[in-house]
């Protein structure tokens, strides 16, 4: 379990600068958070243009609320939470319902590996039929080639929206699980299940990529 994530030392300094009306501090936050804010908003509203309006409204909310922000969460969590709330309200006004099930994907219970990867019967049922490859034995460049990175990017883009947001926040941006839960309004279990599905599918995409490169 992770400890409670509250405003960090960097956050405290940023909050101080924002309260003073420091434009450079504000723009640095925009650079860091805006792409993710747009992705989160887009889950709930009908178009990219509306998502941009939501994000703009959220930034104004951040500025108007910064004097009252008490630092009980990290600054970025609080900001993404504001986007989520505004986007949900806007989506409802648009008559758009975005139930959790449709955002999370209908494959949360799907197996991480194809059934034929395991023995189906006998004393060893459920154990590997053929051993998974040890990627540590592959040349380091294979895992880090631009083709491999592209494959990972495509795999994430193809995920159901909430799975994609969770893996982006956790593994691309390195947020703590508690920050992600609070930012996206997920339970601990939901966050973990979404992360597992997302990582399992990216792993499978990487495996295909490693096999292609090994055989070429």
């Amino acid at each position, binding site marked *: *379990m*992770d400890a409670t994530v509250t405003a960090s030392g960097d956050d405290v300094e940023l909050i101080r600068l924002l*309260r*003073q*009306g420091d*434009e450079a501090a*504000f*723009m640095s936050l*925009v*650079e860091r958070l*805006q*792409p993710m804010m*747009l992705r989160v908003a887009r889950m709930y509203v009908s178009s990219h243009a509306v998502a*941009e309006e939501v994000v*703009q409204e959220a*930034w*104004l909310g951040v*500025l*108007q609320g910064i*004097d009252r922000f008490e630092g009980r969460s990290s600054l970025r969590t609080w900001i993404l939470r504001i986007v989520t709330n505004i986007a949900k309200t806007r989506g409802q006004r648009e008559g758009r319902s975005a139930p959790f099930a449709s955002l999370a994907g209908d494959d949360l219970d799907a*197996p*991480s*590996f194809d059934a034929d990867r*395991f023995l189906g019967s006998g*004393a*060893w*049922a*459920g*154990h*590997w039929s053929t*051993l*998974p*490859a*040890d*990627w*540590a034995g592959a040349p380091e460049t294979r*895992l*880090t080639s631009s083709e*491999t*990175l592209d494959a*990972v*990017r495509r795999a*994430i883009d193809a995920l159901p929206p909430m799975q994609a947001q969770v*893996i*982006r926040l956790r*593994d*691309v*941006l*390195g947020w703590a*699980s508690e920050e992600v839960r609070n930012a996206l309004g997920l339970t*601990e279990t939901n966050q*973990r299940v979404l*992360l*597992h599905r997302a*990582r*399992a599918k*990216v*792993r499978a995409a*990487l*495996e295909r990529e490693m096999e292609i490169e090994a055989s070429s």
Partner: protein
Amino acid sequence: MTRTSDDDLTCRELVEVITDFVEGAMSDADRARFERHLGECAGCTAVMSQFRSTIEVTGRLTEGQVSEAQRDAMREVFRRWRDDTPAARD
């Protein structure tokens, strides 16, 4: 690995709880079962390492860029807010 008892995890079961394990969301008993299987299974050890590589490679990606138009629009939001609330600012 050697099959010891029906209480042990199968490989098929282990791969579905890898994230529970790495997120620290397992009971002590489940964690012990997981580690016991891992200690004896080359295949699952390889998959654990594949998940670690997956996380590491994903971490090499970067998030999208902010467009110039977006940047200008947000700067505008900021300046309007700052100019509207001069009393609160230095």
